[in-house]
C-alpha cells in the first residue's frame, strides 16, 4: 500500500500538465570486496543503486521535494552478515519510509524515501518542513557543529546522507548572514534536537555560533571558514553537558568503562587546512580532538561513540589527504586517518575517471593497520569499484 502511494507521488508530475517540476538522479553499480575481521570469508557484493530526485514548484516560492533511493544487493554479505538490513538502513524516529522489496538468499532489495519536505521562501525568510538534510559545519571531514547528521567520508557511496525529520526556519539578515532555528522532534525526550545557529561574516571569514540541546544535553559551539593567504583555513569547536547527563548506553564489554559514565564537560575541536598548487596538486589536513575519546581500546567503542554524538571513538584523530589530476579527466587521491594513541590507521587510495559525459568510474580501497582492539584495526580491508551514470 505504502509503495503504491510512493509510486503515485512519483508519477504525479508526469500526469498533471502544467506542473513546474525538475527531476534528476543517478544509477550506480558498486562492486565491493571486503575482508572483515569477524568473518572468515572474503565478502564479494554487487549493488545496484538508483536515486530519483523530484522537486515540484507549486509557486515560485513554494516547492515540494521527494527523493527516493532504490538499492538492490546481491552477494555474500546479504547471507553472511547478521542484521544486514539494520546495517544498511537508517533508523528514523517516526517512520522509516522504507520498504523491503525482495529478500531471497543472496538478494536483497530496499526502497526508501530520504527526502520529503515542503519549502517556502519569502524575501527575508525560509521555512522547510519534513524529511530534509540540515548540513552545518565548515570542515571537510569532521563536522562537530552538525547536530543533525554529520557526514562520514568513509561512507562515500551515500554522500547525501539520511535526512532529518525536522522543521527549519531561516531568517536572512544580510547577503552572508542569517539566523536559523531547527527542531527535530522525537517520541522520546532523549532523542530530540533543537538548535539555534547564527551565521555571520567578518573580513574574509564566515562565522557560525551555535546553541542548542541534543539528546538531553545542552551544547554550544562556533565554527569559522576563511583564508590564510591563499590557503583554506577552517575549524569548529563545541562544548556540551557531560555524557553522563545524556542517554545511557552500556559499555562495549563489561570490563571496560562506559563512555556515558563520563562526568566531565564534553569538549570537541576541529582544525582544517587545504591548499591547491597551480599544477593541481592538492593538500588537505585535519585534526579532531574529543575530550571524551578513548586512548585505548577505541575499536570496541565505535558503536557507543556514534550513539554518544562523537564522530570518532578516539581522543585524537588525524586526517591527511593528497590529490592530483593525472589527466584532465582523471584524478588520483589518497587520504589517511591516523590515531596517534593506538597507532592504528586507514589508508584510502582512489582514482576517479570521467569516462564519458555523465559517466564516472571510481575505484577506492581501504587498507587498515593496527591491533584488533585499536580504532582502525577493528575495521576491515576493502576495495570498491563504482560506475555512475547521472541524469
Amino acid at each position, binding site marked *: 500500500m505504502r509503495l503504491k502511494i510512493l509510486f503515485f507521488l512519483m508519477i504525479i508530475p508526469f500526469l498533471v500538465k502544467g506542473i513546474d517540476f525538475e527531476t*534528476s538522479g*543517478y544509477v550506480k553499480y558498486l562492486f565491493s570486496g571486503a575482508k572483515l575481521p569477524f568473518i572468515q570469508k572474503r565478502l564479494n557484493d554487487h549493488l545496484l543503486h538508483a536515486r530519483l530526485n523530484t522537486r515540484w514548484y507549486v509557486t515560485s516560492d513554494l516547492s515540494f521535494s521527494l527523493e527516493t533511493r532504490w538499492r538492490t544487493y546481491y552477494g555474500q554479505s546479504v547471507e553472511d552478515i547478521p542484521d544486514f538490513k539494520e546495517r544498511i538502513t537508517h533508523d528514523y524516529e517516526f517512520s522509516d519510509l522504507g520498504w523491503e522489496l525482495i529478500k531471497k538468499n543472496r538478494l536483497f532489495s530496499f526502497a526508501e524515501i530520504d527526502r520529503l519536505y515542503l519549502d517556502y*521562501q519569502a524575501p527575508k525568510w525560509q521555512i522547510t518542513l519534513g524529511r530534509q538534510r540540515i548540513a552545518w559545519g565548515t570542515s*571537510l571531514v569532521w563536522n562537530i557543529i552538525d547536530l543533525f547528521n554529520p557526514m562520514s567520508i568513509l561512507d562515500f557511496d551515500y554522500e547525501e546522507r539520511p535526512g532529518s525529520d525536522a522543521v527549519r526556519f531561516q531568517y536572512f539578515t*544580510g547577503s552572508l548572514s542569517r539566523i536559523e532555528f531547527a527542531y527535530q522532534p522525537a517520541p522520546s525526550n532523549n532523542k530530540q534536537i533543537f538548535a539555534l545557529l547564527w551565521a555571520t561574516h567578518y573580513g574574509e571569514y564566515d562565522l557560525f555560533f551555535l546553541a542548542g540541546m541534543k539528546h538531553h544535553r545542552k551544547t554550544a559551539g562556533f565554527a569559522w571558514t576563511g583564508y590564510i593567504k591563499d590557503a583554506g583555513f*577552517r575549524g569548529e569547536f563545541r562544548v556540551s553537558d557531560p555524557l553522563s547527563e545524556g542517554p545511557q548506553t552500556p559499555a562495549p564489554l563489561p570490563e571496560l568503562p562506559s563512555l556515558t559514565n563520563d562526568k566531565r564537560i564534553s569538549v570537541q575541536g576541529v582544525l582544517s587546512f587545504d591548499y591547491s598548487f597551480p599544477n593541481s596538486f592538492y593538500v588537505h589536513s585535519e585534526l579532531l580532538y574529543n575530550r571524551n575519546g578513548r586512548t585505548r581500546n577505541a575499536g570496541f567503542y565505535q558503536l557507543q561513540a556514534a550513539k554518544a554524538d562523537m564522530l570518532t571513538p578516539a581522543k585524537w584523530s588525524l586526517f591527511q589527504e593528497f590529490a592530483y589530476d593525472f589527466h584532465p579527466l582523471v584524478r588520483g587521491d589518497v587520504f589517511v586517518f591516523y590515531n596517534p594513541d593506538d597507532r592504528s590507521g586507514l589508508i584510502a587510495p582512489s582514482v576517479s575517471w570521467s569516462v564519458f*559525459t555523465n559517466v564516472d568510474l571510481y575505484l577506492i580501497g581501504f587498507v587498515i593497520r593496527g591491533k584488533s582492539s585499536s580504532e582502525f584495526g577493528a575495521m576491515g580491508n576493502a576495495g570498491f569499484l563504482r560506475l555512475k551514470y547521472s541524469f
Partner: protein
Amino acid sequence: MKKKLFIKQGKSFFLLVMSFMLLNSAFLFADQKGTEIVRKANDQLRGKSSIITATLTVIKPNWTRSISMKIWSLEPDYALILITKPARDKGTITLKRKREVWNWLPSIRRMIKIPPSMMLQPWMGSDFTNDDLVRESSIVEDYTHTIIGEEKIGGYDCYKIRFDPKPEAGVVWGKIIAWITKKNYLELKAEYYDEDGQLIKSMLGSKIKKMGGRLIPSYWEMIPQNKKGHKTIIEYHSIKFNVKIDPSFFSQQNMKRIR
C-alpha cells in the same frame, strides 16, 4: 573524498566564469585611433551587469566535454553561476563576492567556501590559461597599439591592430594582433605571440548575432598553435546587458534559490 571531487569541479566553474569575463574585457587596449577602435569594440561586449547563458566546450583529439551555465554578474566584483548541464554537475552554484567564493553543492546540501588557491586551475584542460584570465585587466595599461593594416575576416572589413607591451610592463605576451570590424567594431580575431615572436594561440569570433540589443560574435574559439585537434569553444545562447541587479542579489540565500 567524494566531496573533494565536487569541490574540484566547483573551483573550475569559477575559472569558466573568468573565461566569460575575459571576453568582456580582454580587448581593453588604448592608443589614439587604435584606442578608439578598441574601446568601441570593448564597449560592444561589455556591460555593467549582465545575465548570460552559455556553453563551454573543450575539444581534445580523443575526447570532448561541455558545460552549460547561467551567469548573473555585476562588474567587477559579483557573480552567481548556475550549472545547467551536464547532469552530474547540474545545480551546482558558485557565488563570487570580491575575492571570496562559495560553492553550493546540491547533493550534499552544503555550502563550501573555496580558498583562492583552488580557484585558478583550468577546467578539464581548457585552452584558456590562468594568465589569460588573471592578467587581462593589466593589459589596458600594459600595451600600446598600432593600426598595421586592413583585412577581411569572415567577409567583414577589419582593422588589423598590433599590441606591443610597454617596456616596463611584466606581461605574458610578446605581442598580440587583433582584427576589429570597421562597422560595429566587432573583434573577430586575435593572435597571441610569445616574446620570441612565435604564435602561441588564436582566438576567433563568429556567428554574429543581435544579443541583448547589440550585435556581437556569439561563438568564440580559442585554438592553441601546434596542438592538433585541441580547441576550446564558448558559445553564448543569450545575453542581457545592464540588467537591474544590485550587490544584495549576490547572497547565500539566492544561491539556493536561483533557477
